[in-house]
Protein backbone atom coordinates (compact mmCIF):
# COMPACT_ATOMS: atom_id res chain seq x y z
CA UNK A 1 0.00 0.00 0.00
CA UNK A 2 1.38 3.38 -1.01
CA UNK A 3 2.55 6.00 1.46
CA UNK A 4 -0.38 8.34 0.92
CA UNK A 5 -2.85 5.83 2.32
CA UNK A 6 -5.25 7.10 4.95
CA UNK A 7 -7.31 4.90 7.24
CA UNK A 8 -10.06 4.99 9.79
CA UNK A 9 -10.87 2.18 12.21
CA UNK A 10 -14.07 1.59 14.16
CA UNK A 11 -15.23 -0.91 16.72
CA UNK A 12 -17.23 -3.63 15.02
CA UNK A 13 -20.75 -3.33 16.37
CA UNK A 14 -24.33 -2.59 15.41
CA UNK A 15 -23.76 1.18 15.60
CA UNK A 16 -20.86 1.27 13.16
CA UNK A 17 -22.35 -1.00 10.50
CA UNK A 18 -24.27 1.78 8.72
CA UNK A 19 -21.18 4.02 8.98
CA UNK A 20 -18.99 1.41 7.29
CA UNK A 21 -21.65 0.83 4.63
CA UNK A 22 -21.82 4.58 3.96
CA UNK A 23 -18.02 4.82 3.69
CA UNK A 24 -17.93 1.87 1.29
CA UNK A 25 -20.59 3.47 -0.90
CA UNK A 26 -18.90 6.88 -0.96
CA UNK A 27 -15.34 5.62 -1.44
CA UNK A 28 -15.21 3.00 -4.17
CA UNK A 29 -11.43 2.66 -3.78
CA UNK A 30 -11.56 1.98 -0.06
CA UNK A 31 -10.69 -1.47 1.23
CA UNK A 32 -12.46 -2.78 4.29
CA UNK A 33 -10.60 -5.19 6.58
CA UNK A 34 -12.41 -7.06 9.33
CA UNK A 35 -10.52 -7.77 12.53
CA UNK A 36 -11.84 -9.28 15.72
CA UNK A 37 -13.93 -6.47 17.26
CA UNK A 38 -12.55 -3.88 14.83
CA UNK A 39 -13.13 -2.79 11.27
CA UNK A 40 -10.41 -0.85 9.45
CA UNK A 41 -10.98 1.02 6.23
CA UNK A 42 -7.94 1.93 4.09
CA UNK A 43 -8.18 4.31 1.18
CA UNK A 44 -5.57 5.64 -1.22
CA UNK A 45 -5.21 9.42 -0.93
CA UNK A 46 -8.57 10.47 0.41
CA UNK A 47 -11.41 9.08 2.45
CA UNK A 48 -14.70 10.83 3.00
CA UNK A 49 -17.43 10.12 5.55
CA UNK A 50 -20.65 11.83 4.50
CA UNK A 51 -23.39 12.68 6.99
CA UNK A 52 -26.18 12.23 4.46
CA UNK A 53 -25.09 8.74 3.47
CA UNK A 54 -25.05 7.67 7.10
CA UNK A 55 -28.45 9.24 7.77
CA UNK A 56 -29.91 7.39 4.79
CA UNK A 57 -28.86 4.08 6.29
CA UNK A 58 -29.56 4.96 9.89
CA UNK A 59 -33.02 6.44 9.36
CA UNK A 60 -32.42 9.36 11.71
CA UNK A 61 -30.53 12.63 11.93
CA UNK A 62 -26.82 12.05 12.55
CA UNK A 63 -24.16 14.36 13.92
CA UNK A 64 -20.72 13.51 12.54
CA UNK A 65 -19.23 14.04 15.99
CA UNK A 66 -20.98 10.80 16.96
CA UNK A 67 -18.23 9.07 14.96
CA UNK A 68 -15.94 9.55 17.95
CA UNK A 69 -18.01 7.21 20.14
CA UNK A 70 -16.93 4.11 18.26
CA UNK A 71 -13.72 5.42 16.70
CA UNK A 72 -10.60 3.33 17.35
CA UNK A 73 -7.96 5.15 15.36
CA UNK A 74 -7.31 7.06 12.18
CA UNK A 75 -4.48 8.47 10.10
CA UNK A 76 -4.35 11.51 7.83
CA UNK A 77 -5.15 15.18 8.18
CA UNK A 78 -8.72 15.82 9.13
CA UNK A 79 -11.02 18.26 7.42
CA UNK A 80 -14.28 18.27 9.28
CA UNK A 81 -17.51 20.10 8.52
CA UNK A 82 -21.12 19.49 9.44
CA UNK A 83 -21.67 17.46 6.28
CA UNK A 84 -18.35 15.73 5.70
CA UNK A 85 -15.48 14.21 7.60
CA UNK A 86 -12.52 14.00 5.21
CA UNK A 87 -9.16 12.29 5.74
CA UNK A 88 -6.21 13.05 3.44
CA UNK A 89 -2.53 13.98 3.59
CA UNK A 90 -1.92 17.69 3.04
Amino acid at each position, binding site marked *: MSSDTVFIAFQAN*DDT*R*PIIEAIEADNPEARVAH*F*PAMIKVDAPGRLVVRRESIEER*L*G*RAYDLRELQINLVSLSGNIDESEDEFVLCWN
Partner: protein
Amino acid sequence: MQIDIKTQAVTQLRQTFSHVARYLGNDKPASRYQEATYGLQAETNFHYRPLWQPELELYDKRRTQLVMKDWYVLRDPRQFYYGTYTITRARQQESMEKNIDFVERRGLLRNLAPAAVEALVLALVPLRHLEWGANTHNCHVTAYGWGTALTQATMFHTMDRLGLAQHLSRLGLLLDGNTGESLAQAKALWLNHPAWQGLRRVTEKMLVTQDCMEVFFAQNLVLDGLLYPLLQNHIEPHCAAEHGPAISLLMDFLPQWFDETSRWVDAVTKACVAESAANHDLVAGWLAQWGALVNDALEPYAGMVLGEKGPQAVKAVEAILEARVGKLGITLDRAVA
Protein backbone atom coordinates in the same frame (compact mmCIF):
# COMPACT_ATOMS: atom_id res chain seq x y z
CA MET B 1 11.31 -25.19 27.03
CA GLN B 2 10.20 -22.44 24.75
CA ILE B 3 6.59 -21.47 24.52
CA ASP B 4 5.29 -19.70 21.44
CA ILE B 5 2.17 -17.71 21.99
CA LYS B 6 0.12 -17.75 18.87
CA THR B 7 -3.03 -15.86 18.22
CA GLN B 8 -5.73 -17.47 16.27
CA ALA B 9 -8.51 -15.47 14.69
CA VAL B 10 -11.80 -17.29 14.66
CA THR B 11 -13.98 -16.20 11.80
CA GLN B 12 -17.62 -16.89 12.15
CA LEU B 13 -19.18 -19.14 9.56
CA ARG B 14 -22.34 -17.13 9.19
CA GLN B 15 -23.04 -13.44 9.64
CA THR B 16 -26.77 -13.67 10.23
CA PHE B 17 -29.77 -16.04 10.27
CA SER B 18 -30.34 -17.76 6.96
CA HIS B 19 -33.90 -16.43 6.56
CA VAL B 20 -32.50 -12.91 6.94
CA ALA B 21 -29.63 -13.69 4.57
CA ARG B 22 -32.17 -14.85 1.97
CA TYR B 23 -33.83 -11.46 2.16
CA LEU B 24 -30.60 -9.51 2.00
CA GLY B 25 -29.43 -11.62 -0.93
CA ASN B 26 -26.13 -12.54 0.72
CA ASP B 27 -24.76 -13.45 4.09
CA LYS B 28 -23.61 -10.06 5.36
CA PRO B 29 -23.95 -8.72 8.89
CA ALA B 30 -27.56 -7.66 9.40
CA SER B 31 -28.73 -4.84 11.64
CA ARG B 32 -30.83 -5.63 14.68
CA TYR B 33 -33.78 -4.04 12.90
CA GLN B 34 -33.41 -6.40 9.96
CA GLU B 35 -33.07 -9.41 12.24
CA ALA B 36 -36.12 -8.33 14.24
CA THR B 37 -38.21 -7.86 11.09
CA TYR B 38 -37.54 -10.15 8.16
CA GLY B 39 -39.36 -13.42 7.95
CA LEU B 40 -41.08 -13.12 11.31
CA GLN B 41 -44.63 -13.12 9.99
CA ALA B 42 -46.18 -16.51 10.71
CA GLU B 43 -47.05 -18.12 7.38
CA THR B 44 -47.35 -21.86 7.69
CA ASN B 45 -48.81 -24.65 9.83
CA PHE B 46 -52.21 -23.10 10.38
CA HIS B 47 -54.48 -26.11 10.35
CA TYR B 48 -57.73 -24.32 10.85
CA ARG B 49 -59.25 -21.22 9.44
CA PRO B 50 -60.69 -18.66 11.84
CA LEU B 51 -64.31 -19.38 12.78
CA TRP B 52 -65.13 -15.70 12.44
CA GLN B 53 -63.94 -15.52 8.83
CA PRO B 54 -63.65 -19.00 7.35
CA GLU B 55 -63.07 -17.76 3.80
CA LEU B 56 -59.64 -16.41 4.81
CA GLU B 57 -56.58 -17.69 6.67
CA LEU B 58 -55.78 -16.41 10.17
CA TYR B 59 -53.12 -14.15 8.66
CA ASP B 60 -54.10 -13.34 5.14
CA LYS B 61 -52.86 -10.85 2.57
CA ARG B 62 -56.36 -10.61 1.15
CA ARG B 63 -57.69 -8.51 4.03
CA THR B 64 -56.87 -5.47 1.92
CA GLN B 65 -57.38 -4.68 -1.73
CA LEU B 66 -53.80 -3.48 -1.88
CA VAL B 67 -51.56 -6.07 -3.53
CA MET B 68 -47.86 -6.31 -2.71
CA LYS B 69 -45.47 -8.88 -4.10
CA ASP B 70 -43.38 -8.59 -0.96
CA TRP B 71 -44.90 -6.97 2.13
CA TYR B 72 -41.49 -6.66 3.75
CA VAL B 73 -40.65 -3.73 1.47
CA LEU B 74 -42.85 -1.59 3.74
CA ARG B 75 -39.91 -0.96 6.01
CA ASP B 76 -39.68 1.66 8.73
CA PRO B 77 -36.92 4.19 7.95
CA ARG B 78 -36.64 4.89 11.70
CA GLN B 79 -35.67 1.22 12.07
CA PHE B 80 -37.66 0.82 15.26
CA TYR B 81 -37.59 -2.51 16.98
CA TYR B 82 -38.55 -2.93 20.62
CA GLY B 83 -35.24 -1.68 22.02
CA THR B 84 -34.74 1.41 19.86
CA TYR B 85 -38.41 2.32 20.06
CA THR B 86 -38.62 2.26 23.84
CA ILE B 87 -35.31 4.10 24.30
CA THR B 88 -36.34 6.87 21.89
CA ARG B 89 -39.75 7.34 23.46
CA ALA B 90 -38.43 7.19 27.03
CA ARG B 91 -36.04 10.02 26.22
CA GLN B 92 -38.80 12.12 24.67
CA GLN B 93 -41.06 11.43 27.62
CA GLU B 94 -38.36 12.68 30.00
CA SER B 95 -38.16 16.03 28.27
CA MET B 96 -41.96 16.25 28.17
CA GLU B 97 -42.11 15.56 31.91
CA LYS B 98 -39.78 18.49 32.48
CA ASN B 99 -42.09 20.76 30.51
CA ILE B 100 -45.16 19.53 32.37
CA ASP B 101 -43.38 19.92 35.70
CA PHE B 102 -42.42 23.50 34.79
CA VAL B 103 -45.99 24.41 33.92
CA GLU B 104 -47.36 22.69 37.03
CA ARG B 105 -44.97 24.23 39.55
CA ARG B 106 -45.65 27.72 38.31
CA GLY B 107 -49.38 27.08 37.97
CA LEU B 108 -49.22 28.52 34.46
CA LEU B 109 -52.48 26.90 33.38
CA ARG B 110 -54.20 26.63 36.76
CA ASN B 111 -54.14 30.40 37.19
CA LEU B 112 -55.69 31.23 33.84
CA ALA B 113 -59.01 33.05 33.76
CA PRO B 114 -62.04 30.69 33.65
CA ALA B 115 -62.89 31.87 30.14
CA ALA B 116 -59.40 30.97 28.90
CA VAL B 117 -59.58 27.55 30.57
CA GLU B 118 -62.89 26.92 28.89
CA ALA B 119 -61.55 27.97 25.49
CA LEU B 120 -58.54 25.66 25.81
CA VAL B 121 -60.64 22.70 26.93
CA LEU B 122 -62.96 23.28 24.00
CA ALA B 123 -60.12 23.56 21.47
CA LEU B 124 -57.76 20.80 22.59
CA VAL B 125 -58.90 18.28 25.21
CA PRO B 126 -61.52 16.43 23.07
CA LEU B 127 -58.62 15.47 20.78
CA ARG B 128 -57.84 12.73 23.29
CA HIS B 129 -60.83 10.81 21.96
CA LEU B 130 -59.54 11.21 18.43
CA GLU B 131 -56.16 9.88 19.56
CA TRP B 132 -57.83 6.89 21.16
CA GLY B 133 -59.53 6.29 17.82
CA ALA B 134 -56.16 6.47 16.07
CA ASN B 135 -54.87 3.93 18.58
CA THR B 136 -57.70 1.54 17.77
CA HIS B 137 -57.35 2.02 14.02
CA ASN B 138 -53.69 1.15 14.13
CA CYS B 139 -54.56 -1.86 16.28
CA HIS B 140 -56.81 -2.91 13.42
CA VAL B 141 -53.93 -2.62 10.95
CA THR B 142 -51.66 -4.54 13.31
CA ALA B 143 -54.21 -7.32 13.77
CA TYR B 144 -55.29 -7.76 10.17
CA GLY B 145 -52.31 -6.46 8.21
CA TRP B 146 -49.64 -8.75 6.85
CA GLY B 147 -45.88 -8.68 7.36
CA THR B 148 -43.84 -7.80 10.42
CA ALA B 149 -42.24 -4.78 8.69
CA LEU B 150 -45.61 -3.04 8.67
CA THR B 151 -47.35 -4.52 11.70
CA GLN B 152 -44.57 -3.98 14.21
CA ALA B 153 -44.42 -0.32 13.21
CA THR B 154 -48.20 0.05 13.48
CA MET B 155 -48.08 -1.62 16.90
CA PHE B 156 -45.53 0.95 18.08
CA HIS B 157 -47.77 3.57 16.53
CA THR B 158 -50.72 2.42 18.65
CA MET B 159 -48.63 3.02 21.75
CA ASP B 160 -47.64 6.44 20.44
CA ARG B 161 -51.28 7.35 20.07
CA LEU B 162 -52.10 6.26 23.62
CA GLY B 163 -49.18 8.41 24.76
CA LEU B 164 -50.50 11.41 22.84
CA ALA B 165 -53.96 10.87 24.32
CA GLN B 166 -52.38 10.84 27.78
CA HIS B 167 -50.49 14.06 27.11
CA LEU B 168 -53.79 15.67 26.15
CA SER B 169 -55.43 14.29 29.29
CA ARG B 170 -52.65 15.74 31.43
CA LEU B 171 -53.10 19.06 29.69
CA GLY B 172 -56.74 18.86 30.78
CA LEU B 173 -55.76 17.97 34.35
CA LEU B 174 -53.38 20.93 34.49
CA LEU B 175 -56.24 23.17 33.39
CA ASP B 176 -58.76 21.91 35.94
CA GLY B 177 -56.36 21.53 38.87
CA ASN B 178 -56.42 17.70 38.80
CA THR B 179 -60.14 17.36 39.37
CA GLY B 180 -60.80 15.58 36.08
CA GLU B 181 -63.65 17.96 35.34
CA SER B 182 -62.10 18.99 32.01
CA LEU B 183 -62.01 15.36 30.88
CA ALA B 184 -65.73 14.86 31.52
CA GLN B 185 -66.37 18.16 29.82
CA ALA B 186 -64.24 17.16 26.84
CA LYS B 187 -66.15 13.92 26.45
CA ALA B 188 -69.43 15.82 26.40
CA LEU B 189 -67.97 18.18 23.80
CA TRP B 190 -66.77 15.25 21.67
CA LEU B 191 -70.24 13.72 21.82
CA ASN B 192 -72.37 16.83 21.43
CA HIS B 193 -70.58 19.99 20.34
CA PRO B 194 -71.35 20.66 16.64
CA ALA B 195 -67.77 21.73 15.83
CA TRP B 196 -66.42 18.33 16.95
CA GLN B 197 -68.99 16.13 15.20
CA GLY B 198 -67.15 16.11 11.87
CA LEU B 199 -63.95 14.73 13.38
CA ARG B 200 -65.98 12.30 15.48
CA ARG B 201 -67.76 11.09 12.35
CA VAL B 202 -64.45 10.51 10.51
CA THR B 203 -63.04 8.61 13.50
CA GLU B 204 -66.13 6.45 13.85
CA LYS B 205 -66.36 5.78 10.13
CA MET B 206 -62.84 4.40 10.29
CA LEU B 207 -63.91 2.10 13.13
CA VAL B 208 -66.29 0.37 10.71
CA THR B 209 -63.92 0.32 7.73
CA GLN B 210 -62.76 -3.25 7.03
CA ASP B 211 -59.84 -2.87 4.62
CA CYS B 212 -56.80 -2.60 6.88
CA MET B 213 -54.66 -0.62 4.45
CA GLU B 214 -57.50 1.78 3.78
CA VAL B 215 -57.62 2.41 7.53
CA PHE B 216 -53.84 2.90 7.54
CA PHE B 217 -53.94 5.58 4.86
CA ALA B 218 -57.14 7.21 6.10
CA GLN B 219 -55.77 7.68 9.62
CA ASN B 220 -52.02 8.03 9.27
CA LEU B 221 -51.74 9.84 5.96
CA VAL B 222 -54.97 11.76 5.43
CA LEU B 223 -56.39 12.60 8.87
CA ASP B 224 -53.00 13.11 10.57
CA GLY B 225 -51.57 14.77 7.47
CA LEU B 226 -54.27 17.44 7.64
CA LEU B 227 -54.97 17.68 11.37
CA TYR B 228 -51.40 17.83 12.67
CA PRO B 229 -50.21 20.67 10.41
CA LEU B 230 -53.41 22.50 11.41
CA LEU B 231 -52.63 22.02 15.10
CA GLN B 232 -48.98 22.83 14.65
CA ASN B 233 -49.18 25.82 12.31
CA HIS B 234 -52.49 27.39 13.27
CA ILE B 235 -54.24 26.12 16.42
CA GLU B 236 -51.23 26.04 18.75
CA PRO B 237 -49.87 29.49 17.72
CA HIS B 238 -53.40 30.86 18.06
CA CYS B 239 -53.88 29.40 21.54
CA ALA B 240 -50.44 30.64 22.59
CA ALA B 241 -51.20 34.15 21.37
CA GLU B 242 -54.54 34.21 23.16
CA HIS B 243 -53.77 32.41 26.40
CA GLY B 244 -50.01 32.56 26.88
CA PRO B 245 -47.08 30.37 25.83
CA ALA B 246 -47.52 27.68 28.51
CA ILE B 247 -49.69 25.77 26.07
CA SER B 248 -46.84 25.70 23.51
CA LEU B 249 -44.63 24.10 26.12
CA LEU B 250 -47.18 21.33 26.60
CA MET B 251 -47.65 20.78 22.87
CA ASP B 252 -43.95 20.67 22.16
CA PHE B 253 -44.03 16.93 21.45
CA LEU B 254 -46.48 17.46 18.65
CA PRO B 255 -44.30 18.74 15.78
CA GLN B 256 -41.39 16.50 16.82
CA TRP B 257 -43.51 13.37 16.89
CA PHE B 258 -45.32 14.25 13.70
CA ASP B 259 -42.13 14.96 11.71
CA GLU B 260 -40.59 11.68 12.82
CA THR B 261 -43.71 9.61 12.21
CA SER B 262 -44.36 11.21 8.82
CA ARG B 263 -41.10 9.81 7.53
CA TRP B 264 -42.36 6.31 8.28
CA VAL B 265 -45.83 6.93 6.80
CA ASP B 266 -44.19 8.47 3.72
CA ALA B 267 -41.88 5.48 3.22
CA VAL B 268 -44.79 3.01 3.47
CA THR B 269 -46.94 5.08 1.11
CA LYS B 270 -44.14 5.47 -1.42
CA ALA B 271 -43.44 1.74 -1.49
CA CYS B 272 -47.14 0.89 -1.85
CA VAL B 273 -47.86 3.21 -4.77
CA ALA B 274 -44.58 2.43 -6.54
CA GLU B 275 -45.52 -1.27 -6.63
CA SER B 276 -48.17 -1.02 -9.35
CA ALA B 277 -50.53 1.34 -11.14
CA ALA B 278 -53.45 -0.51 -9.56
CA ASN B 279 -52.07 0.21 -6.07
CA HIS B 280 -51.50 3.82 -7.01
CA ASP B 281 -55.07 4.30 -8.17
CA LEU B 282 -56.41 2.54 -5.12
CA VAL B 283 -54.43 4.71 -2.68
CA ALA B 284 -55.21 7.87 -4.66
CA GLY B 285 -58.90 6.92 -4.53
CA TRP B 286 -58.78 6.44 -0.74
CA LEU B 287 -56.94 9.72 -0.46
CA ALA B 288 -59.56 11.62 -2.44
CA GLN B 289 -62.44 10.00 -0.57
CA TRP B 290 -61.06 10.46 2.96
CA GLY B 291 -59.54 13.82 2.07
CA ALA B 292 -63.00 15.19 1.30
CA LEU B 293 -64.43 13.75 4.54
CA VAL B 294 -61.63 15.12 6.71
CA ASN B 295 -61.82 18.47 5.00
CA ASP B 296 -65.53 18.74 5.83
CA ALA B 297 -64.68 17.75 9.40
CA LEU B 298 -61.87 20.25 9.86
CA GLU B 299 -63.76 23.28 8.63
CA PRO B 300 -66.14 23.58 11.61
CA TYR B 301 -63.33 22.74 14.05
CA ALA B 302 -60.92 25.30 12.56
CA GLY B 303 -63.75 27.81 12.36
CA MET B 304 -64.59 27.34 16.05
CA VAL B 305 -61.01 27.86 17.23
CA LEU B 306 -59.62 30.29 14.67
CA GLY B 307 -62.77 32.23 13.79
CA GLU B 308 -62.73 33.78 10.36
CA LYS B 309 -59.16 32.62 9.74
CA GLY B 310 -60.42 29.02 9.84
CA PRO B 311 -61.18 28.36 6.14
CA GLN B 312 -57.86 29.87 5.13
CA ALA B 313 -55.99 27.60 7.57
CA VAL B 314 -57.76 24.51 6.24
CA LYS B 315 -56.80 25.51 2.68
CA ALA B 316 -53.19 25.94 3.78
CA VAL B 317 -52.96 22.48 5.34
CA GLU B 318 -54.62 20.95 2.29
CA ALA B 319 -51.88 22.46 0.16
CA ILE B 320 -49.31 20.93 2.53
CA LEU B 321 -50.80 17.44 2.19
CA GLU B 322 -51.13 17.80 -1.57
CA ALA B 323 -47.46 18.74 -1.91
CA ARG B 324 -46.51 15.87 0.41
CA VAL B 325 -48.36 13.15 -1.50
CA GLY B 326 -47.15 14.63 -4.78
CA LYS B 327 -43.59 13.98 -3.61
CA LEU B 328 -44.56 10.39 -2.80
CA GLY B 329 -45.52 9.77 -6.42
CA ILE B 330 -49.28 10.12 -6.10
CA THR B 331 -51.11 12.07 -8.77
CA LEU B 332 -54.60 12.78 -7.51
CA ASP B 333 -56.00 13.35 -11.03
CA ARG B 334 -55.54 9.71 -11.98
CA ALA B 335 -57.68 8.68 -9.04
CA VAL B 336 -60.85 6.76 -9.64
CA ALA B 337 -62.85 8.37 -6.91
